[in-house]
């Protein structure tokens, strides 16, 4: 069976993992256009190259990042998301005018 190295749990069967899509930079939801937001939510590059992706180790509920070549399906490295994300992403609703 194909194996993947989970940064938390070590080498495990690929059947324990769930693919979570490409790692993309999120546009500011309060200021970006609808097209930019739709592009972020619905579309992926789908390129044949080394891609950076989210993966979930389902038995431990642990999300991490893997670099994988989409042509050969070779997993080059895996690491904790704290390498790329150092702080919590907060979502604040845009200020709305209160009607009297």
């Amino acid at each position, binding site marked *: 069976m194909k194996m993947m190295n989970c940064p938390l749990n070590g080498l495990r069967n690929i059947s324990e993992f769930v693919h979570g899509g490409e790692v993309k930079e999120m546009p500011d939801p309060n200021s970006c256009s609808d097209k930019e937001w739709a592009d972020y939510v619905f579309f992926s590059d789908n390129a044949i190259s080394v891609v950076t992706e989210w993966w979930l180790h389902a*038995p*431990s509920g642990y999300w991490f990042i893997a670099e994988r070549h989409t042509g050969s399906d070779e997993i080059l490295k895996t690491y904790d998301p704290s390498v790329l994300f150092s702080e919590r992403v907060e979502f604040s609703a845009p200020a709305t005018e209160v009607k009297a």
Partner: protein
Amino acid sequence: MEEITKNIVKPETYLARSPLYRVHEAAGAHFEACASAAQVASYGDQSEPLAALIDLSVQHRFGIRGANAIAALSAAGLSVPEKPNQCLNSANGETVLRLGKTEFWVLGAMESGTCSADSSAFADCYPVYCQDSHACLLLSGEQLPDIMAKLCGVDLSESVFPKGSIAQTSVARINAIISHLPDKEGTHFVILCDSAAAEYLWACLLDAMDEFGGKAAGLNYLF
């Protein structure tokens, strides 16, 4: 006669029940009151099996996570395992499982089935609910790594999975957390799995144990 009937402990008497209580009743289990629920004490007059599968689902457990979890556990007098995927016993008999960098589950002391606190006592941590969402099964006895090798891809033999280790992996194709209990004589694996899959895993484990002389048992097997 009426007096005797009154004293028989039944799972239906309690609001908290194991997801496996119907299986135990059908198999003729004898229950005793433990942690405000009916805990299987024994399976009648069976002789001591070489390996035993014991349902500890009604015993109390809770989880916490967050940046303050380590400090909060220490302040509450609970042991904190050094690294993720390790477990440690606390002075009052509870077992602390470290499942991630900042996630901990606490299993109640096995004899009483209770915890000295619950997640609401840790105000600055996120509570992680794991009581009715999970079933808690204990494998005890001999040849446990061989039994588990039939169901699980991870090597659980003593040399690579010593006492105090945890493996979060797939067992019989369902997600499970396997903890090798520390500070106990003999080998004891606690298996936590989704409560909805408890009957399936119970049957799978009994089937795997059969050739090694393993059988379902109650808490009396341990004490």
